[in-house]
């Protein structure tokens, strides 16, 4: 694949280092900030691979919206140092988990190295895409023609998630408000 190896290995090394820090770091806020850096490294790799729209969405949606949501909840719950968990009782299970992960990683790397199956090559080469107006225009035209059904279904999914979030967040709140009102009445009496 014709991309610059220097920048690819730079971004890949940064992404691996920061994602290890996400898992290792004791504080949840430190994990969240390391995750932001992983997202930026991924956006750099996407931009190198001519996926400009995906790179922009990666930064706006992931590094912008999702991580702000995460940090908001961590700070709201004051759960920064909660539940860090390397106590010696479970160390055997954790070693089994790490061993399993290492075996699966080497298995996947072996598969990708030794099976270079190439499917039928379609006609969206980077030269063709650039001639048709660039990555964003081609992707947008596809989104509103060939992929219109999944696009519309996405709106249903987002509606369902909005309703779900409101339903999860609301019921308890009503009870608490009622209790609060009862408490107020009692203290007034």
């Amino acid at each position: 694949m014709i991309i610059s190896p220097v920048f690819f290995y730079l971004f890949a090394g940064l992404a691996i280092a920061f994602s290890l820090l996400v898992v290792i770091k004791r504080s949840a806020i430190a994990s969240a900030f390391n995750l932001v850096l992983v997202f930026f490294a991924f956006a750099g790799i996407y931009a190198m691979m001519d996926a400009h729209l995906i790179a922009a969405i990666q930064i706006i949606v992931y590094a912008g919206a999702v991580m702000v949501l995460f940090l908001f909840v961590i700070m709201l719950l004051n759960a920064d140092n909660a539940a860090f968990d390397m106590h010696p009782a479970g160390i055997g299970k954790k070693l089994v988990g790490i061993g399993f992960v290492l075996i699966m990683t080497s298995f996947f790397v072996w598969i990708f190295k030794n099976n270079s199956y190439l499917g039928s090559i379609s006609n969206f080469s980077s030269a063709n895409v650039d001639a048709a107006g660039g990555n964003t225009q081609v992707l947008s035209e596809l989104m509103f023609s060939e992929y219109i059904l999944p696009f519309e279904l996405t709106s249903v999914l987002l509606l369902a998630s909005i309703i779900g979030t409101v339903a999860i967040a609301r019921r308890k709140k009503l009870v608490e408000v009622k209790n609060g009102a009862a408490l107020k009445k009692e203290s007034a009496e």
Partner: protein
Amino acid sequence: MNYVQPWVILAFSSIIFFIGFAGILLRRNILVILMCIELMLNAVNLTFVTFSKQLHHMGGQMSVFFIITVAAAESAIGLGLVVAMFRTLRSVDTDDIQLLRE
């Protein structure tokens, strides 16, 4: 010398995927577990973009677009559930979820 083998990128994304998987196995803070799920979704997105570039097909990048939408919805719902869990249990530790153990 401006060529990276596709399997190197795929191997890199599988490494990131299993780092996220290890995080899910090892950590007990449910917020960090959600972050590791995001890490795994990102690794899969990189695989899609790699195959999209390799096969000159836009379907991969379209799939990434929809995966990002689903991931944003998933994290909103997941964090709502974390807040509800914290209200009931006063904790974000997954070992404290044992209300059905009685």
